């Protein structure tokens, strides 16, 4: 991978981290609030169904995760097992696309 792409990945990792820092704080507060009386489908869906605010929030959250996690994984694969190059890049790109697809499917599932 050329230097320009490496810098682009580095930047994407940091910008996604900044977005995630905010998303995770909101997510943790929501989790702690939501579990206080036990989790139920009615309670979760009552909060998320038809709510454009949560839809927008989780859509951005999933996008940031789908960028952040595979770039981190790419570094771990290179440094821990020495898997680098085109095959590793294709693998992490597939992970990114899977996370985005499954993540947005989950967002849709609790919205409709």
């Amino acid at each position: 991978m050329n230097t320009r792409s490496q810098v682009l990945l580095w930047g994407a990792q940091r910008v996604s981290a900044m977005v995630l820092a905010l998303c995770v704080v909101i997510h943790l507060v929501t989790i702690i609030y939501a579990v206080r009386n036990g989790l139920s489908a009615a309670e979760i869906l009552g909060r998320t169904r038809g709510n454009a605010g949560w839809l927008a929030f989780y859509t951005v959250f999933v996008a940031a995760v789908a960028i952040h996690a595979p770039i981190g994984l790419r570094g771990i694969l290179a440094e821990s097992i020495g898997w680098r190059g085109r095959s590793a890049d294709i693998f992490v790109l597939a992970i990114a696309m899977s996370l985005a697809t499954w993540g947005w499917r989950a967002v849709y599932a609790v919205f409709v």
Partner: protein
Amino acid sequence: MKNDFRARNHPAYWAFVVHRVSGLLLTLFLPLHFWALGQALHGEARFDGFLRWTEQPLVKFAETALVLLLAAHMAGGVRLLMLEFLAWRDWQRSLLAIASGASIAVGLAFLLNVV
């Protein structure tokens, strides 16, 4: 100093290990998390059935560990962003301790709520 355990046994190294391991475990957990939420597509009853399964003590224990991992990864990540983008001063080293403390506090808050 040789590149052995002694060279690595310092707080910044352990912060690196925690960040890497938590990041990897959270990534592995994501497909399961998305699958679980996707149960809502098959109706509220199916989603509720899954949520009842999560009430087992072992699952609650795993959930607490995941919340702790998420809090630790976020706190460690914010520390890294501050290291990279802000001027690093001696007093900011205490951020490491604050990051650890905040993670544990979040984990305990979750545990107290679910038990």
